[in-house]
């Protein structure tokens, strides 16, 4: 009887070990994945998009300058909580580029590849995050996470406002894609804060 009980416990332990192993498997190489995704996405943007602003867009650029300091919000959020921040940033980038882009002449295939790559990373990161959160009772840490997401959302809200103001015009989109590149560069720099 005793032996059966011990064996039972052993089985339970083994099964639990197995499950924790499975659930954490895709999260072990998270930093490598994130770095590759960010670099690759940046590469897609750089190769297919304009890097210099057309001259007629300079006045629009002046209207956007006000949002420059808000990139610091992104930096703060990445420093506070890199995984959550990246999860939110990637989602916001996909959402932003899914708006009305009829004015731009961007290569649709490259844009879709860029978005789907970010989306795949969002899904994987989301699974890792929810596995981590399971152990977390709503707590100061939970509030902290909310704050991190809010910072990111505030930054992209400014971008949305700018696009709406300029009626999703060509210049507005050119400025926004340059801004998104800056944001991804920051993500790339701060990804190494994530512990594997």
């Amino acid at each position: 009887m005793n032996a059966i009980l011990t064996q039972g416990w052993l089985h339970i332990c083994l099964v639990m070990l197995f499950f924790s192993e499975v659930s954490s498997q895709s999260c072990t190489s998270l930093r490598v994945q994130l770095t590759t995704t960010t670099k690759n996405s940046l590469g897609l943007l750089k190769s297919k998009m304009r890097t210099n602003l057309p001259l007629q867009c300079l006045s629009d650029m002046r209207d956007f300058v006000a949002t420059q300091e808000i990139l610091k919000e992104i930096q703060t959020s990445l420093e506070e909580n890199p995984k959550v921040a990246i999860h939110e940033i990637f989602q916001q980038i996909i959402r932003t580029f899914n708006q009305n882009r009829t004015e731009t002449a961007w290569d649709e295939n490259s844009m879709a590849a860029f978005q789907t790559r970010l989306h795949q990373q969002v899904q994987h990161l989301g699974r890792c995050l929810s596995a981590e959160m399971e152990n977390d009772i709503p707590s100061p840490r939970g509030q902290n996470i909310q704050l991190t997401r809010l910072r990111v959302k505030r930054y992209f809200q400014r971008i949305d406002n700018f696009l709406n103001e300029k009626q999703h015009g060509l210049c507005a989109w050119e400025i926004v894609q340059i801004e998104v590149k800056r944001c991804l560069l920051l993500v790339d720099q701060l990804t190494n804060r994530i512990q594997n």
Partner: protein
Amino acid sequence: MFPLQEKTQDVFSGQNLPYLQPDTTYCLKVKASLEDHKALWSPEYCIKTPKALDGLAPPKNLRVYALNMKCILYWDNLYNGSISFTVQWLYAFRRQYSPDYSDEWITVQGCENITKPHCDISSPVSFHGMFYFRVRTMNSYSKSPWSEELPFDPLIENEIDPPSVKVNASENSLHIFIVPPEELEKNSISEHYSFTYHIWYWNNSSYTKGRIEEKSTSFIIPNLSPSTVYCLEVQALLISKSSKFSNVTCIETASGQSNQVSLVIAVVFFGAAAVVVALLCVSWYIWKKVKYAFFPSCNFPLIIEKTGGRDPNSSYLISSEESTEKCVLVIEKSILPEINLKDHGQSEQSCRDSGNYSNDDDISGNKNSHEIKEEEAI
């Protein structure tokens, strides 16, 4: 009354809900979900499905098998006879981020109006992306509604073949060569990610396995024992996905002792050869010196040989002195000059014989002086 069955599922704007019963009233309510935010339910909306499904039913049980990025979609065929199928695909993010994704579906190339219940969907699939697929049944009269929407994430669902391994053994190490899992020309996996290899190796006697993680396809396992059979198996890893193990490969390391013996033999042989050569050189050198000293190859000039090594001047002087002394003591004039002249004549002749020498003049000079001295003495 029918029992109320409540079912919850994630939906996006533009989504089709297939496989409902005909002539049935369905009610639905929706609420938004966003991370940890709480949301409220919408009001209920009820609708009755048409009386009977007068057309074809959509295919069921969609599934994808993907091996080395060759992806095949299968589904259950519910009909016999002349029916065909069409497959469509969609980027997964479009479901989530488009206001209505129902018109964003694209027909998969080569999967239009096909008769077999499976199709190769590799063409739109890239390793880094998430996709949805749907199928519908058609005949010449009608088209079925679209099937369920099947998600596919190649990063997770694609299986990897085990790599193949070649091993070369030396005395105390194994050189491993790995051939990565077979790849399709399109959608090459290693184009985006390099494999990591896990190598397990053990020797037959110990049963404890060593494990190595390697990124390169050619490497060496060092510090092994000679004359031992080692076995190994290799697994390819791609992010979170790992292949099955390769076949177990066994090989015996070279025997170290025979090598040592041959090394010793070689050292001894070459050592002995070196010593012999050195001895030969030394003895030859010594022989040369001895030969030079005692058996010179060039002869002394005859004049020197004849004098027997004595200084010619002194010898003559002494003999003349002696003769003069004798002259003083014994007066026998008739004999003495004769002997002297005889001697002199002999030496004069030998000088002439050796007339080849370049110092002829000196010798003749000496002869003159001898003659003078002798005359004086007399």
